């Protein structure tokens, strides 16, 4: 009537209105029904009850509204039920009632009434539970309307919950056994699921979203059945394995529904106990590849694995059970099957599955590292990561090999989806968190998995690896492991994509710290480790080496000192040869490092390292090597530091140099005084144990300094070789130092200067130095430069000023040729000490030191 005039209602308002109308009617019929009940008027009560239930026949309401209506009716049905339960009030037997309510003409009210009477019938003990329930669940088939059916069956499920002939229930025996209860619930479940799935079909396509939403709202109605099943007392493993699971899975697989399949699989996973899952894993997993391709099998598997993982964590004693069930293998097979069956599977899914596998493996088989590695391998294969080049050293390479096929692998899925990245990172993090460094490094497929990440993500992951190594308690003490470790962090060792400067620095800082974790008690191994590490850092180019060099150097120095210490403790000749050989290698290593640093234009560092190395060599009594190193330091200082733009560092370097030299001197002084120092004293100056020691050691050391230390520096090599014959061991080392000092004084840029320097007394060295600097400064002409010079006059001697000037000079190109070009020409002119003069090395060192100290103090 007035509807025509009213504005059209929105869908929501319409729903509300319909619901309100229906609820009013329900209220009204319920009122009459209750009045009839009060009068014990069965016929009238049934009539009004039917009318009330008839309101549930509506097809206009959305599931949610229908649910509200259902709940209202449901609460009214209680009155009817308690009336039915009291034979004195209606005077009928339950069987009569059971027949009577079936006279109702409409099916929906009829079945609600039937269920209500049925529950009373069973409760009274007159009807056998299994028969009545079977009848009810069968009759309910008449309701094919999805929503009506779902709610009716939900009502049936609810009403029957306490009536099931479960083990230990009062309805067992006559009323059947657990098997009957299971059959009943399963049938109800199957039918409900069918109805639920059917909701997806029919109706216009534009409503698909709404229907899906509505379906999701109803899913628990279906899932409830599984819950009831799981709570049956009598449900034992065999029943579950032989009846429940196959039938549930059959239903799940057959329904071919995007919403139902994952939900039900998840529900099965969640509601049944762990040990059931374990014992039936094969069956359960067998269903997974049969799910629709659009269903995220990964989620399903992951949730199952998570469940078991949790179980494994909660109850470690289950581990045996897991092993017995071979759970992991089954999971892996299943994952492989899914990957195989669904080529379109997203990377995220694949990763999710493997991440869960990983968690599970770690939780259940923590001690079996090869499993973890196998998972990594299969993960990498699943995403098409290229196989690593065959490396026979990898113990677990066989695992990775199994997943390789003869045909060329598909192109790797580089993981870009943020969620997938998260998965992969999670996957890769699990072993890091679980195992200590050493074990992680045995996971040969780990780097292969990392190669799936985008460069930036890979770097983050590598950083995580590094951090975990740093955090770990055990050091990496095997060169092979070190190599592997660098494979793990390979992404930090190469330039790929743009990288934030800060991140780079941070990463390299971590890498540097990592060096300190590469440690073995065995000196030889340690050397191998360091060599490996250096080689790896070298592949990263100069800018990485710069960061890595100091820790490498420190480690090498430490190693050197350790070698020396061992040497002094153990006097037997065989080890000694070995040790000195080792020391030689260490020094060589240091020398190479210096070269590398210089190549990387880190002269400052090179210098410092040079000096430290020299100190080490010196302390070991490797005079030649020490000399070489000093010379090199001086060369470096001269050529690079002084001219370097890093003037401020230059100053520091000066100070350091000074400090080092001072230290050097102090060391000598100590040796002069203390018993241990004496060991290293020159035989000419001292006797006693020191002499003896030196006598044995000297040749080896000479060899060190003479031939093998030099690396690429052939120039020095030749020079040294030329002298060795003429001077004694101790003299030779002294000579070296002298040469170092001399070279410091030598002005390499002009032949004449060299002569002059040779003639200059040691005391005059600082003056020479100063003059040279002045001279250089003077050459740099030009107004601005001059002004600067004037302003800088008070600090003229400071290392910084000359070096800047020198730079200006070089830019002119006129003052002198580049040092590199000159090298060859100068070689012969380097002044040595007067032939035959045996100088006291200590004295020379003193001079050198005083020179530096002087310079530094003046600078300051």
């Amino acid at each position: 009537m007035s509807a025509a005039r009213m504005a059209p209602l929105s869908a929501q308002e319409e729903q509300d209105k319909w619901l309100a109308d229906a609820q009013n009617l329900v209220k009204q019929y319920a009122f009459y029904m209750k009045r009839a009940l009060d009068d014990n008027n069965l016929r009238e009560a049934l009539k009004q009850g039917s009318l009330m239930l008839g309101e549930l026949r509506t097809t206009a309401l959305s599931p949610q509204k229908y649910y509200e209506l259902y709940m209202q009716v449901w609460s009214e049905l209680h009155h009817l039920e308690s009336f039915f339960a009291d034979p004195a009030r209606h005077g009928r037997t339950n069987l009569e009632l059971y027949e009577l309510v079936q006279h109702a003409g409409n099916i929906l009210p009829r079945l609600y009434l039937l269920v209500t009477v049925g529950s009373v019938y069973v409760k009274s003990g007159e009807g056998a539970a299994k028969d009545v329930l079977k009848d009810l669940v069968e009759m309910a088939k008449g309701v094919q309307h999805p929503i009506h059916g779902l709610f009716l069956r939900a009502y049936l499920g609810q009403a029957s919950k306490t009536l099931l002939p479960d083990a230990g229930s009062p309805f067992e025996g006559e009323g059947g056994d657990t098997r009957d209860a299971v059959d009943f619930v399963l049938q109800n479940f199957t039918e409900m699921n069918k109805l639920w799935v059917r909701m997806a079909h029919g109706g216009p396509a534009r409503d698909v979203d709404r229907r899906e939403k509505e379906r999701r709202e109803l899913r628990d109605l279906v899932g409830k059945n599984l819950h009831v099943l799981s709570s049956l007392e009598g449900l034992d493993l065999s029943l579950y394995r032989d009846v429940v699971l196959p039938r549930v899975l059959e239903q799940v697989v057959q329904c071919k529904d995007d919403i139902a399949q994952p939900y039900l699989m998840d529900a099965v996973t969640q509601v049944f106990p762990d040990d059931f899952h374990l014992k039936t894993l094969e069956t359960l997993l067998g269903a997974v590849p049969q799910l629709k391709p659009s269903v995220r099998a990964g989620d399903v598997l992951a949730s199952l694995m998570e469940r078991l993982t949790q179980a494994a964590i909660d109850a470690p004693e289950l581990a045996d059970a897991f092993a017995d069930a071979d759970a992991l293998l089954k999971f892996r097979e299943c994952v492989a099957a899914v990957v195989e069956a669904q080529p379109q599977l997203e990377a995220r899914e694949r990763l999710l599955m493997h991440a869960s596998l990983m968690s599970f493996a770690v939780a259940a088989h923590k001690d079996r590292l090869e499993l973890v590695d196998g998972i990594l391998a299969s993960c990498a294969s699943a995403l098409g990561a290229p196989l690593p080049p065959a490396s026979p050293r990898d113990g677990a390479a066989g695992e990775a090999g199994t997943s390789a096929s003869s045909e060329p692998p598909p192109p790797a899925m580089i993981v870009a989806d943020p969620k997938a990245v998260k998965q992969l990172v999670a996957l890769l993090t699990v072993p890091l968190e679980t195992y200590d460094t050493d074990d992680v490094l045995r996971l040969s497929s780990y780097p292969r998995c990392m190669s799936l990440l985008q460069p930036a993500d890979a770097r983050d992951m590598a950083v995580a690896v590094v951090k975990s190594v740093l955090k770990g308690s055990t050091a990496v003490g095997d060169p092979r492991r070190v190599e592997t470790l660098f494979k793990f962090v390979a992404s930090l060792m190469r330039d790929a994509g743009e990288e934030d400067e800060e991140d780079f620095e941070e990463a390299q800082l971590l890498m540097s710290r990592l060096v300190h974790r590469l440690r073995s008690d065995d000196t030889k191994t340690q050397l191998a480790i360091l060599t490996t590490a250096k080689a790896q850092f070298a592949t990263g180019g100069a800018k990485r080496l710069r960061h890595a060099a100091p820790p490498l150097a420190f480690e090498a120095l430490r190693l050197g000192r350790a070698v020396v210490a061992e040497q002094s403790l153990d006097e037997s000749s065989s080890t000694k040869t070995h040790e000195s050989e080792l020391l030689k290698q260490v020094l060589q290593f240091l020398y190479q490092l210096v070269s590398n640093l210089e190549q990387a234009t880190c002269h400052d560092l090179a210098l410092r390292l040079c000096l430290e190395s020299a100190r080490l060599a010196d302390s070991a009594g490797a005079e030649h090597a020490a000399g070489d190193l000093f010379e090199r330091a001086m060369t470096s200082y001269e050529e690079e530091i002084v001219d370097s733009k890093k003037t401020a560092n230059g100053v520091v370097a000066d100070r350091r140099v000074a400090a080092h030299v001072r230290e050097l001197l102090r060391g000598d002084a100590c040796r002069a005084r203390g018993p241990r120092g004496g060991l290293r004293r020159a035989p000419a100056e001292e006797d006693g144990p020191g002499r003896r020691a030196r006598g044995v050691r000297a040749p080896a050391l000479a060899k060190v300094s003479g031939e093998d230390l030099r690396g690429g520096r052939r120039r020095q090599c030749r020079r040294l070789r030329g002298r060795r014959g003429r001077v004694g061991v101790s003299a030779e080392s002294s000579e070296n130092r002298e040469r170092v000092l001399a070279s410091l004084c030598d002005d390499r840029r002009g032949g004449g200067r060299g002569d002059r320097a040779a003639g200059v007394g040691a005391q005059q060295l600082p003056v020479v130095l100063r003059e040279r600097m002045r001279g250089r400064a003077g050459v740099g002409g030009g107004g601005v430069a001059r002004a600067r010079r004037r302003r800088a006059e008070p600090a003229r001697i400071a290392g910084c000023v000359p070096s800047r000037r020198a730079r200006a000079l070089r830019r002119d190109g006129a003052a002198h040729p580049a040092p590199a070009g000159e090298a060859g020409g100068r070689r012969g002119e380097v002044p040595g000490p007067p032939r035959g003069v045996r100088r006291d090395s200590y004295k020379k060192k003193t001079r050198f030191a005083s020179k530096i100290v002087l310079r530094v103090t003046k600078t300051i």
Partner: protein
Amino acid sequence: MSFFGLGRAVTVDLTHAAGEAQRVASVKSDRGNLETLPVFTDKETIAGHVHLSPAPGKQIDHLGVKIEVLGQTELYFDRGDAHDFVSLVRELVNPGEFNGPLSVPFEFKSVSLPHESYRGINVRVRYVLRVTVSRGYGGTVVSDFPFLVRLVDEPPSVNTGIKMEVGIEDCLHIEFEYAKAKYHLKDVVVGKIFFLLVRIKIKHMELEIRRRESAGGGVNTYNESETIAKYEVMDGAPVRGESVPVRLFLAPYDLTPTYKNVANRFSVKYYLNLVLVDEEDRRYFKQQEITVFRETL
């Protein structure tokens, strides 16, 4: 009945010999209300007493009192042509007079009652015990005491089920199955409907019981169908492969047995009619005859 204030001269009543034990049944009367009538069956003895009560203080002269058993078929469209297929008479009282209540026994031994009482749309079969107090001057008093006749049928020796596949090509194919083809009056129709193909949107499905009465003969045959029961057996649209159970109790419905050519006058047949209604309220149906019989009185 009273004429002109005189009232009825004699009140006639009848009691059956079985008394309280007499079988009775409730049926709808002509006026639409329920009445409870005694029930007899073939070859039963109908016996009892007729009670005659004159108005107080009056003496009744009469020309005799008799009682008749009458069985008639009546076609409503042909009212005048009632056909008596049973007519038995007993003289109860010889002509004379009485002035007080009088009870007279009567007995009809092993009366042949070949047809059941029936009230249909166009035809009925009725039985009465008619007591006539014949008097002169139009004072004859006739009282009818209707009774019902019910006949127990032999249970069918063969009672196979009904199974049939029906459909509309490429639209709907169903197979239905009823456990029996012959039902007694309190029976239950149990069956199942299988959906083999469903391409229409079915709203619901119901099972109807239809009665078909065919009265008269030749050109004057009147066929009437009425739906005795409508019983919804399915709600909503099934999909292929579903099966829907049917369980229909016949007891609540006012059925009679199937009558075949009663007194050459009429027949009554019953059908189960399966009706599917689609969303546009189109009806698809298939009708199957069933035989209804009386198992017990």
